[in-house]
């Protein structure tokens, strides 16, 4: 089941062996780009934007929709595009597996609104940093209370009349406002912390294991396996060496199915090159006396950027330029990054052993080169010195402190805004700020797998089947000639799109079962062919927590002949021992000899087309013997029949 149309912010549900597992719940925030920014301080420019008027001149929407430089925006609290909730009953989801902190932003919507009662599994850094991201999100939206919440434009009839991209927005009626902090806390309380390579058993049926994915602190790929099947879920992985622990590829081998999501969004850009460009642009602006604004998330790439700058500023002669990191969670984010040593790459780990803080931003803070503030209000306004470099959120430029800086610095061409987060199109993000004098530089840094790395990875781990979002099976629409920008593998990947249900192409055949030692002792193996032995097992099957155990039957089955039923209720024996199947064939001559030995004197054998008929004339009994069947026809003489039966059985192998 695919619940999200965004390939990097996935939300899929996997039904596997009677468990229902949700893989990630990413929140598609690109929807906010259709809204006007939320300014921290009253912005005369934004409030003076003209209302949007329909072609026929009717103005009933002018309160809700505003026009800015030819684009139409909704003037309302920003809303997010949720994962699909109608496709299946989300209360039946047993567990949610989170792969990284960007892919858990929809969690409160799922756990608090759908009747979800299961458990969420995530690593500790994912939870802590995820909490910071959510906190920042909630904070920046709640800080700016907006009186109106527009809904009229969502009317299907009305939406049809709107210009693109509003016209084409999907599922607008499903868009929801941001959650609140209590909801975040409630959602996070349902998370159970896990470590890499920890094997977690779900209902005894399935084993799930998180593996390092190398993309972010605590980011993980998941292996979902039973004894005979293995599904790997690869989401947001990176082969580059940045700060997190490198990706664990070996454990992904021998997968039956590999679900691949969260590839790079900027397949053409090289992260290393982008970092270089970032630094040089930053230096140039500052040297010219301008300010640099870096819209970013409070965790992740910013650690790497700070580390690069740490090495770069001295050589570039920028040591006197103040760096500001403004976010309600700035302090927490910087502190948290230092304590997750176990989740860091080897180099950083060894630093902790010295002991030294793993990230150099501790030193930047100590030497006062980097300062962090919860918001632009308070201490920041006193310390604020220009020119400077400001890191702040939100990268969509629709809310958070970044809105203020855009308004403040937008008019001067000395200043530069540098986009590093790849989640939002920078042109769309800037649209409501047009016209803009400020320089804009786009250096997206996306360390997730690119297509070359994917094909290498697939060659390495050799999954039987690959499943991925449909976006990855065709070149990006803007570069349709680039056929190298798609997944290429054999057999061709199975693709899915939003709200699609897919049946994974494999079949389960075997299951593990345990045989109790007492029972094992009682088995009598029979060697049929050299190296192959058979043993007939008659045992009681106990199934508990999806684990199967075979035990000795409580009583040895009584020989059928002694089962004389006296009462009708005896008819239905509780432990009816099943009769074994028979195999082999009966050599007639020997059989006749045996019969004679047992007192049958009048045995007569007739040959037929397929076999023989043995006649016991006196008893009016007929035994048809063929290659693979024997038929005993007799009068109702039970002792005789039983005797004959036992004689026949002597010649056959039982299973």
């Amino acid at each position, binding site marked *: 089941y695919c619940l999200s149309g965004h390939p990097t912010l996935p939300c899929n549900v996997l039904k596997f062996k009677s468990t229902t597992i949700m893989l990630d719940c990413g929140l598609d925030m690109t929807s906010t780009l259709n809204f006007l920014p939320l300014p921290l301080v009253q912005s005369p420019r934004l409030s003076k934007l003209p209302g949007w008027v329909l072609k026929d001149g009717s103005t009933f929407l002018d309160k809700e929709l505003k026009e800015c430089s030819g684009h139409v925006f909704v003037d309302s609290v920003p809303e997010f595009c949720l994962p699909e909730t109608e496709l299946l009953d989300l209360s039946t989801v047993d567990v949610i597996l989170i792969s990284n902190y960007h892919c858990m932003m929809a969690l409160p919507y799922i756990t608090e609104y759908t009747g979800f009662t299961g458990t969420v599994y995530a690593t500790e850094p994912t939870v802590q940093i995820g909490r910071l991201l959510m906190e920042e999100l909630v904070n920046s939206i709640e800080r700016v209370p907006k009186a109106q919440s527009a809904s009229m434009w969502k009317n299907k009839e009305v939406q049809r009349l709107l210009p693109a991209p509003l016209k084409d927005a999907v599922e607008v009626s499903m868009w929801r406002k941001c959650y609140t902090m209590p909801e975040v806390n409630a959602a996070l309380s349902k998370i159970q912390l896990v470590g890499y*390579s920890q094997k977690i058993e779900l209902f005894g049926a399935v084993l799930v294991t998180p593996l390092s994915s190398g993309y972010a602190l605590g980011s993980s790929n998941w292996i979902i396996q039973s004894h005979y099947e293995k599904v790997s879920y690869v989401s947001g992985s990176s082969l580059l060496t940045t700060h997190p622990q490198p990706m664990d590829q070996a454990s992904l081998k021998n997968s039956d199915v590999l679900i691949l999501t969260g590839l790079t969004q900027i397949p053409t850009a090289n992260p290393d090159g982008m970092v270089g460009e970032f630094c040089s642009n930053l230096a140039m602006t500052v040297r010219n006396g301008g300010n640099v604004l870096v819209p970013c998330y409070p965790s992740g790439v910013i650690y790497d950027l700070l580390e690069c700058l740490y090495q770069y500023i001295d050589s570039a002669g920028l040591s006197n330029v103040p760096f500001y990191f403004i976010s309600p969670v700035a302090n927490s984010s910087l502190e948290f990054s230092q*304590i997750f040593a176990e989740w860091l790459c080897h180099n950083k780990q060894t630093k902790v052993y010295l002991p030294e803080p793993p990230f150099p931003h501790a030193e930047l803070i100590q030497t006062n080169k980097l300062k962090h503030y919860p918001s632009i209000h308070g201490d920041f306004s006193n310390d604020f010195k220009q020119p400077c470099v400001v890191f702040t959120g939100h990268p969509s430029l629709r809310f958070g402190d970044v809105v203020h800086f855009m308004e403040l610095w937008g008019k001067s061409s000395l200043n530069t805004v540098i986009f590093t987060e790849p989640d939002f199109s920078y042109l769309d993000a800037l649209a409501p700020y047009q016209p803009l004098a400020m320089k804009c530089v786009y250096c997206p840094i996306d360390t997730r797998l690119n297509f070359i790395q994917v094909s290498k990875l697939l060659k390495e781990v050799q999954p039987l089947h690959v499943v991925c979002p449909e976006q990855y099976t065709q070149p990006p629409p803007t570069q349709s000639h680039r056929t190298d920008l798609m997944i290429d593998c054999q057999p061709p990947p199975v693709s899915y799109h939003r709200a699609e249900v897919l049946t994974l192409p494999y079949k389960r055949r075997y299951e593990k079962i*345990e045989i109790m030692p007492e029972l*094992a002792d009682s088995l009598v193996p029979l060697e049929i062919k050299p190296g*192959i032995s*058979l*043993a007939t097992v008659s045992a009681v099957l106990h199934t508990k927590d999806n684990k*199967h*155990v*075979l035990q000795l039957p409580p009583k040895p089955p009584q020989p059928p002949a002694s089962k004389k039923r006296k009462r009708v209720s005896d008819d239905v024996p509780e432990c009816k021992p099943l009769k074994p199947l028979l195999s082999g064939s009966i050599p007639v001559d020997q059989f006749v000899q045996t019969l004679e030995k047992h007192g049958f004197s009048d045995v007569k054998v007739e040959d037929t087309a397929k076999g023989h008929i043995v006649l016991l004339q006196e008893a009016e009994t007929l035994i048809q013997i063929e290659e693979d069947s024997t038929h005993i026809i007799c009068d109702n003489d039970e002792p005789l029949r039983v005797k004959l039966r036992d004689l026949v059985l002597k010649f056959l192998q039982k299973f």
Partner: protein
Amino acid sequence: MPEIKVTPLGAGQDVGRSCILVSIAGKNVMLDCGMHMGYNDDRRFPDFSYITQNGRLTDFLDCVIISHFHLDHCGALPYFSEMVGYDGPIYMTHPTKAICPILLEDYRKITVDKKGETNFFTSQMIKDCMKKVVAVHLHQTVQVDEELEIKAYYAGHVLGAAMFQIKVGCESVVYTGDYNMTPDRHLGAAWIDKCRPDLLISESTYATTIRDSKRCRERDFLKKVHETVERGGKVLIPVFALGRAQELCILLETFWERMNLKAPIYFSTGLTEKANHYYKLFITWTNQKIRKTFVQRNMFEFKHIKAFDRAFADNPGPMVVFATPGMLHAGQSLQIFRKWAGNEKNMVIMPGYCVQGTVGHKILSGQRKLEMEGRQILEVKMQVEYMSFSAHADAKGIMQLIRQAEPQNVLLVHGEAKKMEFLKQKIEQEFHVNCYMPANGETTTIFTNPSIPVDISLGLLKRETAIGLLPDVKKPKLMHGTLIMKDNSFRLVSPEQALKELGLAEHQLRFTCRVHIQDPRKEHETVLRVYNHLKAILKDYSVQHLPDGSITVESILIQATAHSEDQGTKVLLVSWTYQDEELGSYLTSLLKKGLPQSTA
């Protein structure tokens, strides 16, 4: 019969130089590699010749696991890996890996530089040894090789202390290391899931002690420190640099702040600052409260506690000094002790366990005249207090852990023989499991009885569970299958499939019986009567009347024809296969009795 063998090379009925050999399903694992504080000769290290007499260590051992950084658990590691020679993997947690080499270096300095011993491991050996270490996360399942896997659980004894589960196939052993079941001021409580190991190897330092509540002890401690300081005395608290020290520092720090006390608190050795730094960086290993508040205020940044200088010991006036090592067997704590011991105003508080043979142990057992090096006699006039702050589980805690893990067998180490004996009885009484307490060099063998895992074809399993679930789950149901054993693989399949796979043809054995019934009516009426009769009796079976005039009971076919000679007698042909033997045999005897007259 599969078995697990355990041989303590150290810590068998003793505290110190923990080192336990475990053989499980053909794998050999060494748990801890410690030194003994009480000895300065060969006895301080475990006797590895027990292993080496049969070859090299690396060949024999599959892996070494270190539970935490205390020297009685890791002190012999460089000796073991570099001097005796071991190149296999050594597993420990990240904090242990970080702190362990520092303590080892410290230990080396005291032994070599101060006491001038030769033939001891060098700094380089410590470094080389640490290169063989693989760091593990909590709860991470580490696959040592194809079969052997280990998993760490939180033990709460010191920073980074862990319990380890060692598993091969379905046999498993849990080794607790040292653990603490009650959360303290900086660490959480040990926790393990219900993993039902075949054997639990538990420490038993406090086998007979049940400690009163932590809070009372803390109050007591603060009161004693406070009183001594008030009357101008000096307080010496011998501690190990990491662990208890931090807990007591937090305690005193908050107390000093609350009471606004001015007497200086010192912490000896340069290690401390470093140690506190470790605590800051590994804050994820501390308890909930500290983790939650660390962003605002890091508990390990002390305001009142300053570094100690040797000259301070002669300063007049009250002071509190934390000094290492904790058992007064060497180093700074012993020096300060010698200086202060003569004054009855002063006090020494021993916050932890002292190994036999150390000064700490002697003064705790009441000795007041100590013979020091060079035949000097030191008279101890200062007050000696013992407060158990060491983070070992008490008897209650040990029982609690056993309850949590539900082991099949328990083995006690790291404790005194007499106390162990008592706890052993208690465990056997309460849990009805075998409890062992081998001495050093003594091997305990435990027989396990593992189930045999086989593969079952899903078709067979589904068929069985489908039937089994319908009426009553509690009623045992017999299932029937064929086990195919081929090249060491076991597969359980349905008999039909087994025949097919082996290319054997099924042999059908069929019986047909003639039953004569007196019934003057027409054939089809007879059939109908038989049908009604059977239907009435065999309520739980599927009895069907087919259009061609025959009756089926399950797969048994019954046909009626008139007797060729006597029209009043009908011949019922009952036909069944061997698989329906019982039912068929029952049916014939039933029909033989005739039909009830009343039915129409």
